[in-house]
């Protein structure tokens, strides 16, 4: 087990040539010993390139990567004692599951009994005991992926790397598999890095999440940090479902009060002195207000910060989604599944002022969390 440290790491494909592409730009990160961290971002954001550099499958263009205290830039993958599970399984087709799982142990000349014990232990933990004698080709994609994870977990590596390990499983299977992996990782306290584009996976599994976009780190933090203190509009929009409501507002100061007046909707938000100072310090007249759908409470139309009419209401079992039209705009609120409204009803929406985020629409950076 070991920590992983990235110091000013860059990945530049076709370095020095005209068609050079900066896939990873100046990433700094310390993954603590035993920590579970997720790299989250849309496809092409650079998250897999970082993972491959840690694994030793990709040359590090600039900067240094340490595993424990050792700089690994010039170490081959097998000298790094890492284990990786691939999106594409990479299983040996001519071996059954047991042989696939035990391959690296046999290569290290483990005793047969020890190998059997370990294979059974991991297979049990991931609920694949009944598949041990099958060939990969006899299994559906989701189970092949699980075998790939099992093979990576079979020896106790310094660092465990997972590259989109659930992408081929269906939704409810995915929930079960991720639970099992989490349980196994909890037991062994192995430093784990998960690459995923699925925010639910990242939020459910990781201690901390590194959000990336366009080759750069956008924010590193716990799920709560990303939900309640998003660093910029990208993080606010990418994390959270349904997506955060962005509401264009004008900064308005009168002798009595300061407020943010909605430009395209019917509504305004009173704000505190501190928030007003932060907005003035940013030097903007127009701001983008961000409010998560889960933070809205539905009230009568005369009371809300935002007034509008019900566009439609979705009963979704565990929760309800209320879509409210207000002038030219539309906002989404997550509600009780049994909310008693019908199309066209006038409603107001209120929200705790601590959960109103203000962003600079030009730089897209957060000005303040809470007004």
């Amino acid at each position, binding site marked *: 087990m070991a920590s992983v440290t990235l110091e000013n790491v860059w990945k530049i494909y076709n370095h020095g040539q005209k068609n050079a592409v900066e896939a990873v730009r100046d990433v700094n990160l310390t993954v603590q010993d035993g920590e579970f961290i997720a790299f989250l971002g849309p496809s092409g954001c650079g998250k897999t390139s970082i993972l491959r550099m840690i694994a030793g499958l990709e040359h590090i263009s600039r900067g240094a990567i340490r595993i424990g205290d050792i700089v690994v830039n010039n170490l081959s993958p097998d000298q790094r004692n890492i284990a990786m599970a691939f999106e594409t399984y990479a299983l040996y087709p001519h071996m059954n599951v047991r042989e696939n799982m035990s391959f690296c142990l046999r290569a290290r000349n483990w005793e047969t009994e020890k190998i059997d014990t370990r294979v059974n232990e991991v297979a049990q933990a991931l609920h694949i005991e009944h598949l041990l004698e099958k060939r990969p080709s006899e299994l559906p994609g989701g189970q092949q992926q699980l075998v790939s994870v099992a093979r990576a977990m079979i020896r106790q590596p310094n660092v465990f790397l997972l590259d989109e390990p659930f992408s081929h499983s*269906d939704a409810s299977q995915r929930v079960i598999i991720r639970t099992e992996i989490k349980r196994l990782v909890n037991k062994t306290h192995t430093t784990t890095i998960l690459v995923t584009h699925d925010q639910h996976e990242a939020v*459910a599994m990781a201690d901390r999440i590194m959000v990336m976009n366009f080759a750069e780190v956008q924010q590193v933090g716990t799920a709560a940090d990303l939900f309640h203190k998003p660093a910029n509009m990208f993080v606010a929009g990418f994390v959270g*479902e349904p997506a955060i409501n962005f509401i264009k507002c004008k900064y308005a100061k009168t002798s009595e009060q300061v407020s943010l007046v909605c430009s395209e909707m019917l509504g305004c938000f009173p704000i505190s002195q501190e928030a007003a100072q932060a907005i003035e310090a940013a030097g903007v007249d127009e701001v983008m207000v961000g409010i998560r759908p889960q933070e809205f409470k539905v009230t009568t139309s005369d009371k809300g910060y935002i007034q509008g009419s019900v566009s439609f209401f979705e009963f979704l079992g565990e929760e309800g989604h209320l*879509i409210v039209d207000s002038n030219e705009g539309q906002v989404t609120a997550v509600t009780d599944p049994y909310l008693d409204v019908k199309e066209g009803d006038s409603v107001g929406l209120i929200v705790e002022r601590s959960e109103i985020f203000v962003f600079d629409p030009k730089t897209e950076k957060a000005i303040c969390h809470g007004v």
Partner: protein
Amino acid sequence: MARVALKNVTVDYGTTVALKNISFETEDGEFLVILGPAGAGKTTTLKVAAGLVKPTRGRVFMDGEDVTDKPGNLRNVAMTFEDYALYPTFSVRQNLENPFGAMENPPTKEEQEAKVMEVAKMLQIDHLLDRRVDQMSGGQKQRVSLARSMVRQPQIFLFDEPLSHVDAKIRHAMRAELHRLASAMATTTIYVTHDYVEALSLGDRIIVIDKGEIRQIGTPHEIYHKPSCEFVANVVGQPNINIYPFLVKQENGNLMVELKDTPQCNFSPNGEAGSVLAKHVGGVVHIGFRPQDIRYSLTPINSHAFSTKIELYELWGRRGMVMALLGEHEMRVLTDTDTRIDIGSQIWLDLSKAPLYLFDESGNQLT
């Protein structure tokens, strides 16, 4: 607008039976969703309605007329496909004008252009009309595919997983759009999906189908709250419903249920569920609990509560999902907040207040 009905339809593909004796009828203007896992027979059902697959047995009716032997192009239905089925090298406009060519009495050129523009505006692709389809994103192609099915004003829309290739964010917006279109056009629609959220959101009624058979037809509330069997209960809702075997007992005149093999997990059911269970004293019933319905506490609550240890905790969007052992079973409980709870700590579960989903030992709804 029209009604479509399938009566006792069976489809055999060689030795495999794709549909077994399916019967249903849409209402006029209804949005009917067919929900089921991969391979359940959803798309086959749609193809039977479209006239692309002929039933081995059974009949298909449109507005009372038997159309079983009528080819698809004469049925005035429009179908969109999961893989779009657009002409990749054609422009959007050419793709949208194409269906007119298959009509017996196509409208005039001017009418066609006006219709294409109207539909393109409705789906917000009017700025893309001269772009080639192979230069568009998946979400845009999906809209073009929807638009093409709308230009000829069919009597019935048939949608095959139209949102399966768009990402979660866009899917939410597209659901909103489909709501808007459905209420604006009021055209009878049959919509196939494997995603229960889409089904609950869009359907006036939902047909749940599995292994070629209908398991239940009902409104979203009926499917969610009164599932006909354990299969249906598991199809809707995430995390999945918890279902365990309980013994039904009568003790000192009080009705009790007791988790099989874990007598200390017991409670007195009352209300409607109580009167159903009273008919099964001495037997074993399967009781389902939705994860968000279970009352829980991290400190002792009352004598009914079952005390157990938290095996696993994960954030579930803005809530938390706790996994705790109930005897030898794992129980999933959805918490109200995203406040972290430590794995290994004690939790008290009060099952007596949760709405109960009752099934017999073979998994059918108990009444």
